[in-house]
């Protein structure tokens, strides 16, 4: 009887999910409620978790609850600690949820809500969740080894090298793109700049509190810091409206870029832990709280989606970024569907905390589902905006025109009505001078969030407060990723240079710290500067480049996973990782080809360089041409390296399957868990 009700319950979930997806996919010409997206996501994830992840656990990975994990065997109370599965889940989710699942879906909304939503759902269930889950489990069975170590041991030296280059590249390009988003969100915004500037003294105060007054009470200090940030947001309104103080905090994009580059260098090279550690905690606190608030806001308000399911820009002529829906929607949304970066977290801290092998399913597969849900919420936040407003905020001046009237006329001409007066009123409502040409995704997301929050809590009167809360949240979040990423990149460069000359590898030797910090900051700073100076807004070049890098890293992770599956004589189950791998190869290689060789100058780097060469020569034009060629070369190098790892992996699979090579996996031997009795 119980079985009958279980089957019935799952049939209801499947029917509801089908109905929701059909509603999203088939409705044309009328607006639908955002709750259909939430329902489709909830049902898809429930089915994926219950059936697909269970199949992978039982048949492909053969999870063994009796096998001791490294957290148990190597328990040192520091890195290796057996931890409650819900706690590890939260820890893992907090580490994988970055700005990516918020920004990518907002940018991809230029195609309408349908392509992004379908990709987020299918990509997560069959790709991202699988990748995170299998890499986590394989790392657990290898004492928490990193992706690059596993690639080297299981595939070969080329695999290890490619993984290293892919990781470093993605860090550099991610930081460049992230910094550009912050610049675009804060330029000409004294309120935003003031709030973010205030997080520095607030973090120092938190550091003092947690170190001197109440040692170790981080949660308390984070609550205190959060309260002070809210006060800073309120004070920011006064600052921005005051004729004397407003100019102090009003910066142009190039000035902000220079400030952020100096900040990144200082964060990497100077011992500023009093500032960085508390700000990191504050950022995590704000992040978890805001995502929770956004979910509650959407459920309470259950808004209507104003964006159509598909826009005319699926053909590749979109103003936010150029390129057709295939392949560009699939590289624009990486985090939220499948993100190679997650494989670094799944083979980093998390495997060292897993108490029981069977818990990798909930942590690896489950946490990625939660992140995917965040991407769905971001899609909703972007699509509740009127399409004209969305395009006015996200389109660069180089495409829609430099004046408000010209931009409004261009966007209205596309069939998305918007007026200069309406945009001015909206800008005033959120406390900004203008909302035109605020590319990068963050301002559009902030306006969407502010609408959701103000409609569910506080009304229109507090829209400006909510907008700046959202901007503060995004900028704080990205700046935390930026300083942490710069340090991680610096360590990676030091590790590599240490092979050439030992002192360079010493992380305590100051000349090495200064030189390697300069290398990393110089690299992402270059991409940032390139983005700031790009007449097409920068995001058009940088975000696709970032997406390509991220998905190429996922390709490496899935190659490692497939190799291990083949080596364990389970080649018949290899499609579980080969299917998303094949999709990613199709997407990333096609996107890379377009970005390098497409004859349309708005898409292809080389075509744009050719177009610029044909114009009037100047120093500025020469630099733009160099940047285009550099971006094409970076893309080409990454694709070539990943092709190498693919060929090396495929050759290995063929030899193992055909019996020409003895399969040898590098798993640690089985040890019985001492928790066996508890587990029954």
């Amino acid at each position, binding site marked *: 009887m119980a079985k009958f009700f279980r089957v019935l319950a799952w049939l209801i979930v499947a029917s509801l999910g089908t109905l929701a997806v059909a509603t999203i996919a088939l409705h044309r010409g009328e607006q639908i409620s955002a709750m259909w997206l939430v329902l489709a996501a909830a049902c898809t994830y429930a089915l994926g978790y219950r059936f697909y992840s269970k199949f992978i656990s039982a048949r492909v990975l053969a999870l063994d609850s009796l096998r001791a994990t490294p957290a148990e065997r190597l328990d040192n109370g*520091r890195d290796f600690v057996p931890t*409650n599965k819900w706690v590890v889940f939260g820890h893992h989710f907090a580490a994988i949820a*970055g700005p990516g699942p918020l920004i990518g879906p907002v940018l991809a909304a230029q195609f309408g809500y349908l392509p992004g939503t379908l990709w987020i759902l299918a990509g997560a269930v069959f790709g991202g969740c699988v990748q995170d889950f299998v890499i986590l489990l394989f790392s657990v069975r290898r004492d928490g080894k990193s992706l690059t170590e596993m690639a080297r041991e299981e595939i070969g030296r080329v695999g290890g090298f490619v993984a290293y280059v892919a990781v470093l590249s993605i860090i550099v390009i991610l930081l460049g793109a992230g910094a550009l988003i912050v610049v675009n969100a804060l330029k000409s915004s004294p309120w935003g700049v003031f709030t973010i500037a205030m997080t520095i003294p607030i973090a120092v105060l938190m550091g003092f509190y947690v170190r001197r007054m109440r040692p170790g009470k981080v949660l308390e200090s984070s609550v205190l810091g959060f309260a002070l940030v809210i006060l800073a947001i309120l004070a920011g309104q006064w600052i921005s409206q005051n004729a004397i103080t407003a100019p102090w905090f009003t910066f142009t994009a190039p000035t902000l870029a220079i400030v952020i580059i100096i900040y990144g260098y200082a964060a990497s090279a100077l011992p500023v832990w009093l500032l960085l550690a508390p700000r990191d905690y504050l950022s995590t606190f704000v992040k978890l709280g805001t995502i929770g608030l956004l979910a509650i806001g959407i459920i309470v308000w259950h808004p209507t989606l104003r964006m159509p399911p598909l826009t005319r820009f699926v053909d590749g002529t979109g103003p936010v970024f150029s390129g057709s829906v295939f392949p560009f929607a699939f590289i624009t949304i990486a985090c939220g569907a499948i993100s190679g970066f997650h494989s670094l977290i799944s083979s980093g801290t998390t495997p060292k905390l897993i108490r029981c092998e069977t818990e990798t399913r909930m942590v690896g597969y489950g946490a990625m589902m939660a992140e995917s849900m965040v991407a769905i919420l971001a899609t909703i936040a972007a699509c509740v905006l009127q399409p004209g407003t969305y395009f006015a905020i996200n389109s660069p001046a180089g495409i829609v025109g430099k004046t408000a009237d010209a931009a409004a006329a261009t966007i209205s001409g596309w069939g998305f009505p918007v007026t200069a007066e309406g945009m001015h009123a909206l800008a005033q409502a959120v406390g900004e001078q203008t909302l035109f040409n605020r590319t990068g995704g963050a301002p559009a997301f902030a306006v969407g969030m502010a609408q959701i929050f103000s409609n569910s809590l506080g009304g229109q009167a507090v829209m400006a407060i909510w907008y700046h809360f959202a901007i503060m949240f995004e900028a704080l979040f990205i700046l935390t990723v930026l300083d942490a990423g710069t340090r991680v990149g610096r360590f990676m460069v030091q590790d590599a240079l240490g092979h050439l000359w030992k002192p360079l590898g010493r992380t305590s030797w100051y000349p090495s710290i200064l030189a390697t910090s300069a290398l990393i900051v110089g690299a992402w700073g270059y991409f940032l500067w390139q983005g700031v100076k790009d007449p097409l807004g920068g995001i058009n070049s940088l975000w696709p480049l970032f997406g390509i890098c991220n998905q190429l890293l996922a390709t490496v992770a899935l190659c490692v996973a497939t190799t291990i599956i083949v080596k364990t004589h389970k080649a018949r189950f290899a499609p579980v990782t080969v299917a998303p791998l094949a999709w990613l190869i199709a997407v990333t290689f096609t996107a890379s080809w377009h970005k390098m060789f497409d004859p349309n100058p708005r898409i292809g780097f080389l075509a744009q360089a050719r177009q610029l060469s044909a114009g009037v020569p100047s120093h500025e034009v020469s630099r733009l041409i160099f940047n285009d060629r550099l971006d094409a070369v970076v893309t080409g190098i990454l694709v070539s390296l990943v092709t190498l790892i693919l060929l090396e992996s495929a050759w290995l699979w063929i030899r193992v399957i055909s019996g020409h090579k003895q399969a040898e996996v590098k798993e640690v031997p089985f040890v019985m868990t001492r928790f066996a009795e508890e587990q029954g």
Partner: protein
Amino acid sequence: MNPTAWLARTAALFVCFLREIFDESAYTRFLRQRRVSSSPESYAEFCREQAASKARRPRCC
């Protein structure tokens, strides 16, 4: 399990989850391992230890 007990257990778990994310549990383990009590000095020592491992931890996009 009755609803009150379930709620209490969920709340306790939530606090555990927050304490782990915000490194309060790690600090408690550090104090237990070193057999020292909480003080500005022991917290400074804990932060120094944490700094080395945390700085190498990637943050996702």
